[in-house]
């Protein structure tokens, strides 16, 4: 990794990262909450089930990522899915069956799946 010595270099780095992320446009992003709480609730099992379902169906336009606590302890494990060109949607209570259903119904067909957690916050974006 090259070091960042100035604000300009930081901004250039940021642009490079944003460009890299923009290249993912057109892909479905599946973001699985993997904090202590979510892992304890079965987040890793949900991730593995979804990865397996994606592989079984030969989907190529899906990218997985992990994040920290999504704050919904009452609904863990939680998964955020962003379909291409759509707003991110967070699903709660994602056990293995729900995880597979999310892939086959929501990701593949865009069909609504139960367990959507409404966005009830405003988030400061710097």
């Amino acid at each position, binding site marked *: *990794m090259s*070091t*960042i*010595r*100035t*604000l300009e270099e*930081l*901004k250039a*780095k*940021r642009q490079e*990262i*944003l460009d*890299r*992320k923009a290249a993912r446009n057109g892909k479905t992003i599946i*973001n699985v*909450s993997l*904090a*202590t*709480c979510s*892992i304890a609730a079965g987040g890793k099992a949900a991730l593995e089930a979804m990865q397996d379902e994606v592989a079984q169906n030969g989907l190529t336009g899906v990218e997985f*990522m*992990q*994040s*920290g*606590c*999504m*704050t*919904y*302890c*009452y*609904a863990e494990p*939680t998964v*955020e899915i962003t379909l291409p060109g759509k707003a991110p949607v967070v699903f*709660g*209570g994602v056990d293995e069956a729900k995880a597979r259903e999310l892939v086959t119904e929501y990701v593949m067909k865009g069909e609504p799946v*139960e*367990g*959507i*957690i*409404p*966005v*009830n*916050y*405003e*988030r*400061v*974006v*710097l």
Partner: protein
Amino acid sequence: MPATTTEKKQLRIATRNCGFIDPESIDDYIALRGYEALAKALTMTPAEVVELIKASGLRGRGGGGFPTGVKWGIALANAADQKYIVCNADEGDPGAFMDRAVLEGDPHSVVEAMAIGGYAIGATQGTVYIRAEYPLAIKRLKKAIDDARAYGLLGKNVFGSGFDFDIELKYGAGAFVCGEETALIRSMEGKRGEPVTKPPFPAQSGYWEKPTIVNNVETFANVPAIVLKGADWFSGIGTATTKGTKVFALAGKIVNVGLIEVPMGITLREVIFEIGGGCPDGKKFKAVQTGGPSGGALSYKDLDVAIDYESLIARKSMMGSGGMVVMDEDDCMVSVAKFFLDFTMDETCGKCTPCRIGSKRLYEMLDKITKGKGTHADLDRLKSLSVIIKDTALCGLGQTMPNPILSTMDTFADEYEAHIRDKKCPAHVCTALLTYTIDPAKCTGCTLCTKVCPVECISGTKKQPHTIDATRCIKCGACYDKCKFDSIIKQ
């Protein structure tokens, strides 16, 4: 899925990135303008950074609410060959997990903020004091520090400014008192984690007797946002005395258990009902303990209080670090006070008498009351001993330990009264005060209860009303749970 308001009651500043970025990717953080706040701060003078934080009105989120900028200013003004900045990640209140969530979800925001704070006070060394029970937070924090180093965002000559800064981790062994800043510093020095008297404050003489700033995880997480968005933006949120937001951990009898971040000044009603979804199973909300073992119970009478540091203290509670334990009609407030005293009795470091022995005496009196053996004289003693401990204990742990008692005695005087005068626990929690009887009008004589009673104290003829021998009943409640005809009366 429980119903949640879709109205946007929450505002996420400290948790702005939690759940949105990969905490193990520095690039994810940089994509959201990560480390730009540090770059900007390094173009300012340290005094300007201190002034900015002062003007923002940011106050410590670790519980005390001391103005962060003022604290930084003291350390800046104290000339020394070395100064230190410490992140307090020893989160130990029962029911609190805000700091863990921030460290696991967005560790770079804390790393960046510590560097900004280090620059502002003139420290080249930062330490995160983190409890060893947080292995995932430790792993992600370590990776964040390593990645920041690899990018040159920590280390020598950060952003070519001539400022050197690095961060190390130190681990706490899970003693609650080590979250107290002077005990924390002693523990960092490899000594027993015991508090010492203040002053001198750590900002004057702390780690190895050098000026040391100790700030909470959440306090730090706000800093990059303030630097980039400005003091006016931050001070525009909140109440007259308390700016910005607070992260709370909702736990206990609440539908939407979880973390929330809300603007200061929000009412308890909004938090409990609109965001939290109220108590499960349609039970009646009774109280919420804020400030953990140092705080007090806010009751249904306080629902319209606008939450800030001062309003909570005025109601004999405190903000604390953000734990909110919700209680419903089935909770006994004397038992709740006893629960917290049990905790502090275990966690007292034993250095000073009022706390070491006082906690035990307070606990014993509460225990006596819950067993129906309390007297009005005990109530008076409970109050006077509480006040003495508050006035004489050395550190915050002892000084705040009586708060759960004083606040519940104040707000729920009737419950204490019922335990003492009527020998009854209105919430039917205190086992010693319970009686189980069978309502002969309802009992069908099905004999089910006789089969589950572990001490075989229920008798009767089949198809005739049964009776419980109260002298032998151990109040296990098995019959109550089993009876299909609601014939068993719990009182």
